[in-house]
């Protein structure tokens, strides 16, 4: 049985407000939580079958060139070595999210330093790693462009947009800013390194991997190997963080599969941390020019946002920096520009809210600069410029919560304590300041399927290849199913990350919860209808609670009504509500920082994030997502930066000692407020994606606070102490 919905109409029923089980939205603990904290949740590389051999990559030591020969024979003499592989099927880099087909293949052409160009397979990991280290290869090295600014930028026609005449608007404006900011490359920083274990059973391949979107990865892997997708099964029940870096099938999966076939045994390939940095996705660095102009009332008349990013040759992805700019603020005259340089650096792809993460951040810095110039409160400036319909497309908004978020945050944070005059508060060596920024992220519904099976015993099983990458999918699908079918949380079992299950949407772009949740909802709704049929009743008139059905003045346990399992596959596809309205999530960030007047060191003292993302499915996991995003904001603002070697582009600081993620001591008390919202256009759950919202704009609140504290505008992220120092007066 199936239950299908194309989301063409808003769903005003708000069924989850009527159901009475009472677990939806609660701060229910994760069903998988205990297993995770006790170490019994099994992650990819831990799921080692008997007889597994280990593969370790050897890397390209040059940025551009041709691999003409590898000396595998010599390695065979080393203890434990079973095979040395390389060749046309090797992936140059991971597939981009949702590619559904193989990325660029072939180990002969070297496109960046760190490209995995050979795999050494041995009995133990240490043997394989040593042998990979010893591998001799012949390479013809070529000069390759490394620095985007040297390479020059392509200007893809379909990525430019303009309305009105911004140049003229700038000239006519009462006030304007025209600023350029840069952001560096970022690493996703997922805890679990990328790893795959491949095992063949005849023609059938099972790959245990650490992947966000098995629904695509199955096809990407099959295409890379040249086998039928039906013969590929991917398992990813637990994923230790992804943040975009595990969206597409990656080199280790394909190499593991090739190796397993070659040696006739299961082969596991786990990347070292250094390899994770070099051979998985980075977020592109960016240069962004933002132009804003206002009339004498402080109303925006024009917005320009031009982004310059980079990627490898032949990669389609380019960081969608300006994604939210077309609709965040009003203004008749608009320019959106996207430019991409082709360079020989680690592949750029989705990392932590691609687009808005850095794009909204810079836009929000420019807004702060404008507010300061205008001598108007930065919150006021934003409130004045909230559009009532999408100013670019003219489409209505499905709902709009920015004003509410800004005002709620203003009161809760104590914004009235802020002195708009920079450098006006000091405690000893510390200069104090406050800053804020809007948060916005586009909302996406993705096609999703899930099967729900209700058994007469009063338990339900949810199956989909959707993943839980630490986000809380196990929890929220349990809650949706339990709420709809009237079952307590412990009566619902959720099975994820197995491509033999119906295809979910995968975890990416914050769409996972709402999309896979809708598939579960649809299946449950149909199950309810099936139960209702037995009573000759209308599904909506039944109340499901704690394993019993209440109908009029009758009440019966489920087991009395059904004598066999009811299984329904829910299936949702995006429809007109995705195209005919503008859907987004909004929020507001607030930060108070202390900047050391001697050293330029910045410490965040406190942060508040106010967010609205439709119905909150689980108060605890939603909050955790926001905390994570805000913490990433601290990293983006202050510490995180991939350093590319200026000569060969390689990632110099490729470990967690030198790529500085914020640590506990960098993260103060973070306060999160989730606003009540229902978005009927989003899906029948009225829920929207929340995962990425917390990072969008967060860094700007911090750097705006640095300006308020010091009067120093750091326009080159991250605001490390040297850059702050450069603007501080000589006498501390």
């Amino acid at each position, binding site marked *: 049985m199936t239950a299908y919905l194309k989301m063409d109409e808003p769903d005003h029923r708000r069924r989850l407000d009527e159901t009475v089980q009472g677990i939806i939205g609660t701060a229910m603990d994760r069903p998988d939580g205990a297993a995770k904290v006790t170490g019994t949740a099994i992650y990819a590389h831990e799921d080692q079958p008997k007889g597994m051999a280990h593969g370790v990559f050897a890397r390209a030591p040059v940025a551009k060139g041709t691999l003409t020969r590898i000396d595998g024979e010599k390695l065979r003499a080393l203890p434990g070595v079973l095979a040395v592989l390389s060749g046309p099927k090797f992936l140059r880099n991971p597939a981009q999210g949702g590619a559904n087909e193989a990325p660029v293949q072939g180990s002969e052409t070297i496109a960046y330093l760190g490209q995995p160009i050979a795999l050494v397979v041995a009995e133990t990991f240490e043997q394989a790693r040593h042998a990979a*280290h010893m591998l001799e290869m012949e390479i013809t090295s070529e000069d390759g462009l490394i620095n985007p600014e040297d390479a020059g930028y392509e200007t893809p026609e379909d990525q430019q947009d303009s309305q009105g005449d911004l140049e003229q608007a700038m000239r006519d404006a009462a006030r304007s800013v025209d600023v350029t900011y840069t952001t560096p490359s970022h690493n996703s920083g997922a805890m679990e390194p990328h790893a795959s274990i491949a095992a063949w059973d005849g023609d059938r391949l099972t790959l245990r991997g650490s992947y966000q979107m098995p629904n695509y990865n199955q096809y990407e892997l099959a295409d890379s190997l040249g086998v039928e997708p039906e013969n590929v099964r991917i398992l990813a029940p637990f994923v230790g963080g992804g943040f975009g870096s595990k969206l597409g099938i990656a080199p280790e999966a394909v190499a593991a599969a090739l190796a397993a076939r070659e040696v006739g045994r299961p082969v596991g390939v786990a990347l070292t941390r250094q390899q994770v940095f070099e051979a998985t996705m980075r977020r592109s660095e960016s240069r962004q020019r933002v132009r804003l102009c206002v009339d004498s009332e402080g109303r925006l008349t024009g917005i320009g946002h031009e982004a310059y990013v980079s990627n490898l040759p032949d990669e389609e992805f380019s960081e969608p920096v300006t994604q939210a700019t077309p609709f965040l603020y009003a203004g008749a005259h608009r320019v959106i520009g996207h430019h991409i340089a082709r360079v020989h650096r680690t592949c750029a792809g989705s990392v932590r809210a691609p687009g808005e993460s850095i794009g909204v951040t810079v836009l929000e810095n420019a807004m702060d600069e404008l507010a300061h110039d205008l001598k108007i409160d930065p919150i006021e400036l934003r409130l004045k410029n909230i559009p009532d319909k999408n100013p670019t497309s003219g489409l209505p908004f499905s709902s709009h919560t920015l004003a509410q978020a800004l005002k709620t945050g203003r009161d809760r944070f104590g914004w009235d304590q802020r002195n708009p005059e920079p450098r006006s508060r000091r405690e000893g060596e510390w200069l104090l300041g406050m800053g804020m920024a809007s948060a916005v992220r586009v909302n996406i519904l993705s096609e999703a399927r899930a099967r729900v099976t209700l058994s007469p015993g009063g338990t339900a099983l949810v199956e989909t290849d959707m993943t839980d990458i630490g986000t809380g999918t196990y929890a929220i699908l349990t809650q949706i199913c339990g709420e709809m079918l009237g079952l307590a949380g412990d009566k619902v079992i959720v099975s994820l990350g197995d491509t033999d299950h119906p295809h979910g949407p995968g975890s990416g772009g914050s769409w996972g919860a709402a999309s896979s949740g809708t598939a579960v909802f649809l299946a449950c709704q149909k199950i309810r209808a099936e139960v209702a049929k037995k009573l000759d009743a209308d599904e909506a008139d039944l109340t499901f609670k704690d394993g019993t059905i209440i109908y009029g003045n009758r009440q019966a346990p489920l087991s009395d009504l059904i004598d066999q399992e009811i299984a329904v596959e829910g299936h949702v596809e995006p429809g007109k509500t995705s195209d005919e309205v503008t859907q987004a999530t909004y929020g507001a960030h607030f930060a108070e920082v202390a900047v050391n007047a001697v050293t330029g060191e910045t410490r965040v003292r406190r942060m508040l994030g106010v967010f609205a993302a439709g119905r909150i499915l689980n108060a605890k996991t939603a909050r955790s997502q926001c905390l994570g995003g805000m913490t990433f904001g601290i990293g983006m603002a202050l510490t995180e930066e991939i350093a590319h*070697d200026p000569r060969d582009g390689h990632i110099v600081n490729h470990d967690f000692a*030198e790529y500085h993620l914020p*640590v506990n*001591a960098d993260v103060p008390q973070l306060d999160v407020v989730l606003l009540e919202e229902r978005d009927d256009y989003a899906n029948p759950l009225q829920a929207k994606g929340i995962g990425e919202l917390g990072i969008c704009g967060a860094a700007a609140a911090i750097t705006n606070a640095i300006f308020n504290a010091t009067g120093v505008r750091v326009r080159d992220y991250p605001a490390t*102490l040297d850059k702050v120092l450069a603007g501080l007066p000589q006498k501390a």
Partner: protein
Amino acid sequence: MRTFEYSRAADPGEAARFAHEGATIIAGGTNLLDLMKLEVMAPDRLIDINRLDLKWIESTQDGGLRIGTLVSNSDLAADMRVREGWPVLSKALLSGATGQLRNKATTGGNLLQRTRCYYFYDTDMPCNKREPGSGCAALGGFNRIHAILGTSDQCIATHPSDMAVAMRTLDAKVEILSNEEGVRMIDLGDLYRLPGDTPHIETTLKPGEMITHVILPPPLEGRQIYRKVRDRASYAFALVSIAAAVDVQDGKIATAKLAFGGVGPCPWRMPQVENLLTGQTPSAHLWEKATDLLLEDATGQGSNDFKIPLLRRTLAAVMDEATRGDGK
């Protein structure tokens, strides 16, 4: 990682003998094992000294301390005698690495940890320290964490330790057991060598020598400060650090002992700077003069140019703090 032979030393003499025969000493392993995994260091033999009876901190007759090489960084930082008499050491230790690392890291291992130069850790990059004569990738590369003092055109790496900076200020001595010559004692300052043309030779230890103890002279008069400036609030190496022990008498600086981390190939100390300060009345102008002298030969390498103004500002702040009020 290459395969290696492993044995456990029964007594310090055996450790020194094995070391003399070419074995590499392993203590906490927090640095050595990382380097072995990357094959930056690829010893054939390891001699494990962890079971030796060198885990104790003893008070010496003259009121100083004798610290066994196996005393962990955590234990040393927490020792009440250290906290009271040599607080700069305790603070320096606690500002280093993380709780987990400090639990494993040992006193001798900390002194002998290798540089954190990115290129040193990457065997595809030229590095004179790792592979003499291959070149120095940090020159002209990304060198944010590199040295501004005491460098050569062969190597610009820093010694990354915090603990060693404090010990240098405290005039620590290192007790060395030599397979050939028995026990000898040197000033910590004499343990390290400048890179010159031989950046791969980092210390004056000879093969077959192991550190058994660090000796601290009796507590110093005056105020002790350790200030570490870094890229995040914890778990980051010093960009610049200063260990200061300063005594002010009757409004004048009676003694000033200063060592600097994050700026040189070893914990950096410059007696001329201390002489310049001694006997003087604290003032911003005096700090200026002292830093001018300290930084006379300082050279930035590009990404680390900021260390020069940073050191200047930090030293002034440390000296202000050290001499504020009555100096107590």
